[in-house]
């Protein structure tokens, strides 16, 4: 194992990874583990990209952007021994959807308690929920192998592509007709329509369909949104592994654990090291030029940035075939979400918690250790989308709220709290563009909406951090503030992510590779793109 200090002394590496987001770090760790001399170059003073923890107000730690972990691949956790480097995932056990007049819909960690709760609203739905979960289990099992494979190109006759396609074909045939049809519907329908076939209680449909719209410029009634529901269940089949929840210390601590693992294998991680461009000679990369003018050389350069940055900002278009240039130009980012992080002096008094001074149920005492979903009806979500469709942020947005300090007391001083609010919709292309005033107005819309369910919220806010898609782009570099490095829409998945014929982490520039969430299988703190890219680089050489 070469130490980070010795490798610092000269500017030649086996591989340079651009961007210290979690995928870049994962790729670096796998390359270093295989004996490569690797350096990670991160523009910001801290690693993590969109998975960072920052102490915005003294004593209050925010998972500024990405805030929970669900899909981090178990094989990465094992291969890199992340628990030894600080990975510690704490349970996030429930979701409560507040309804009018203090009523609520809750999903608890215990199946019986959840069934009883749903039955309170609809006995039929309570039974449907268990059948639905059963089907989703099978659907997720059907899709899961795809997450771990390099996408074969259906237009290619190369033996490896044909083998991949045959494997895939065999896999889908093994599902049987019923499940294949169910999967096809899931791939093509809207989440609202799909859920209509299963459920009658509207807030339940709304809360479930919300997971189909996260990070995507679609409404619950837009075709294609049903597929994203499935991503939600993907984490559950790894249920035994229990990698779903809240990272101790916030999502930045996940990035740090991967960074430490990479360094334990000998990788060097440099922060405040922005890359200006990738150096190309005769169709082959020779290294990178940093923004400060320094040059580092390596036969392999791996970009963890999104496809626009990878193909437009870092290399000149003359190095790329025209069809790729136009595919990337058409790749949809369309950031649709924002984030509001609050430092709180006390807990919010959500009206569903208490009745006549006491908890409404013994379970409610734990409710704020889980998520709160502002998704009272499908129509509510669709209206929120309508605003965005016409270039405005939602006046009453969908929100996914967690209070990390309830789970990890280290996130805030004793008795104080931090609240993370994922907010949708906030279109990147806002009418008139995002300004400081618009940002605050967006923040106000969030607080106004929240106040309906937690009347004391305004009085307990010590600090408010509002992040629009424009802010997300400015701070993290994610184009148009899309949290997945490009929408998880069907036409941008698998062998089309990010572009036809270039979905296997390779680029037209020899030695230049891509490993971000803009490649298969995409977003979330999953790490799969970084791992698959590194394995592909190691298998195919530069």
């Amino acid at each position, binding site marked *: 194992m070469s130490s980070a200090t010795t490798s610092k002394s000269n500017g030649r590496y086996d591989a340079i990874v651009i961007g210290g987001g979690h995928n870049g770090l994962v790729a670096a760790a796998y390359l270093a583990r295989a004996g490569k001399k690797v350096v990670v170059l991160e523009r910001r003073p801290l690693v993590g990209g969109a998975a960072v923890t920052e102490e915005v107000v003294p004593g209050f730690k925010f998972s500024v952007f990405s805030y929970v972990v669900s899909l981090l691949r*178990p094989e990465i*956790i*094992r291969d890199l021994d*992340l*628990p030894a480097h600080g*990975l*510690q*995932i*704490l*349970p996030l*056990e429930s979701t409560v959807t507040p309804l009018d007049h203090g009523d609520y819909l809750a999903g608890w*960690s*215990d199946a*019986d*308690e959840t069934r009883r709760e749903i039955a309170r609203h609809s006995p039929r739905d309570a039974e449907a929920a268990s059948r639905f979960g059963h089907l989703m289990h099978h659907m997720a*099992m059907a899709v899961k192998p795809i997450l771990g494979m390099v996408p074969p190109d259906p237009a290619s006759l190369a033996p490896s592509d044909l083998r991949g396609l045959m494997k895939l074909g065999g896999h889908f045939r093994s599902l049987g007709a019923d499940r294949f049809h169910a999967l096809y519907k899931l791939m093509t329908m809207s989440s609202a329509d799909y859920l209509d076939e299963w459920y009658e209680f509207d807030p339940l449909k709304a809360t479930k369909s919300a997971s189909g719209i996260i990070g995507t410029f679609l409404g619950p009634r837009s075709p294609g949104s049903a597929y994203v529901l499935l991503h939600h269940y993907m984490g559950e*089949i*790894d*249920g*035994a*592994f*229990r*990698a779903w929840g809240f990272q*101790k210390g916030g999502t930045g601590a996940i990035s740090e654990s991967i960074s430490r693992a990479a360094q334990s294998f000998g990788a060097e991680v440099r922060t405040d090291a922005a890359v200006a461009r990738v150096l190309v000679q005769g169709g082959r990369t020779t290294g990178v030029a940093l923004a400060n003018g320094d040059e580092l050389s390596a036969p392999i350069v791996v970009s963890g940035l999104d496809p626009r940055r990878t193909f437009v900002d870092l290399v000149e278009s003359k190095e790329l075939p025209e069809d790729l240039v136009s595919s990337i130009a058409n790749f949809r980012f369309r950031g649709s979400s924002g984030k509001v992080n609050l430092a709180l002096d006390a807990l919010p008094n959500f009206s569903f918690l208490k009745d006549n001074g006491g908890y409404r149920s*013994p*379970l409610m005492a*734990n409710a704020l*250790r889980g998520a709160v979903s502002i998704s009272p009806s499908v129509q509510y979500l669709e209206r929120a989308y309508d605003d965005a469709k016409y270039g405005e942020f939602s006046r009453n947005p969908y929100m996914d709220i967690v209070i990390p300090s309830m*789970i*990890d*007391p280290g996130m805030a*001083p*004793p*008795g*104080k709290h931090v609240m993370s609010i994922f907010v949708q919709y906030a279109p990147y292309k806002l009418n008139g563009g995002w300004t400081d005033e618009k940002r605050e107005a967006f923040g106000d819309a969030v607080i106004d909406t929240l106040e309906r369910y937690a009347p004391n919220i305004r009085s307990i806010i010590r600090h408010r951090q509002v992040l629009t898609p424009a802010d997300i782009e400015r701070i993290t570099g994610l184009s148009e503030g899309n949290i997945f490095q490009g929408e998880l829409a069907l036409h941008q998945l698998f062998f089309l992510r990010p572009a036809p014929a270039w979905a296997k982490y390779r680029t037209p520039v020899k030695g230049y590779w891509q490993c971000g969430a803009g490649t298969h299988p995409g977003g979330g703190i999953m790490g799969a793109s970084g791992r698959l890219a590194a394995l592909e680089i190691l298998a195919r050489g530069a």
Partner: protein
Amino acid sequence: MLKTTPFHPRTAPLVRAQTWRRWAGHQVASAYDPHPEREYAAVRNAAALFDVSPLYKYLIRGRDAARLLDRMVTRDVTKCAVGQVLYTPWCDAHGKVIDDGTVSRLDDATYRLTSAEPNMRWLAMNAVGMDVTIEDVSARTGALALQGPLSRTILQQLTPADLGKLKYFRLVQTTMHDIPVTISRTGYTGDLGYEIWVDAERAVPLWDALMACGEGFGITPAGIWALDLARIEAGLVMLDVDYFSAHHALIEDQKSFPDEINLAWTVNLDKGPYNGRRALRKARTGKQAWAFVGIEVNWESLERLYAARGLPPHLPNVAWRASAPVYRDGEQIGYATSGCWSPLLKRSLALAHLQAPHYEPGTRVEIEVTVEHHREQADAVVRKLPFYDPERKRA
């Protein structure tokens, strides 16, 4: 009817799924939530509050108190300073373990012995001719274990004693919220943690004070399921699960030398005579026949076994306590006695008794697992205990 502990008025309303279990004739919570995830997480992330009152507790007083205990246990009690705690097993004349527990020196001539089983008779038999009184204070002493990285922070708010200076396996007699208590830096989780010993009559106010003060620090009442996960990660042996008392064993094979249950470090062969010393000395002259070690089950292997049945790996969220044969190249070389999926380490762990020469760390073995009604063998590797040993435990 089972006895309840002094904290029962507070614990009972919290046991949401009525998941009670028996422990030394008492009823205690397996978990307060239906599942132990959150309670376990508190052990490694914040602070978990366990009611450990069912432990047997004896006060041993008098001129010969040290002599009695030193005659009984394998560690050197004559070197135990006031304020020190020793973890130790004790053996029969053949060197086979009867029980294990702690010896705390409360003052010059007063010791407290804790144990898993009743030991009054054994103490009395060993005390023949000694100037000593033995008192069973089990019922009138409540005991709590506050375990986890924030346990010190919480306790420090309630006590004038300087806990920053209280070292691992030391105790202090002080007050908490004006209630007289003994705080020992001990526990059964392998984490930073303390045990608090209180007069049963003051138990409830102590609980209330802790819960009120700990609220901002994530204090979480936790049951035996969570404790069991933590103690397996910490590689701590459990009577009646991982080994049997020589007093109850029906056959020789059910008995263990301390060395055979990973307690070789507690055996002092140089101190004065004590129960089993001669046998232990003799045993040390030969090769150790059995060892108590860690086993880590290979995940990929487990995944393959489940995939062959069309299933994703299924692991229970509580520890298992059953005997699972361990093989090497088809020959049975031992058996695992408890195990769990470690939520922290993300590994499938077991504690096992293995025969020489198969117990060296790194040895590849196979462990029996039942997958969808079929007995299978999963690949596994022998590990040194403990699996998890954070610096904060001693720091």
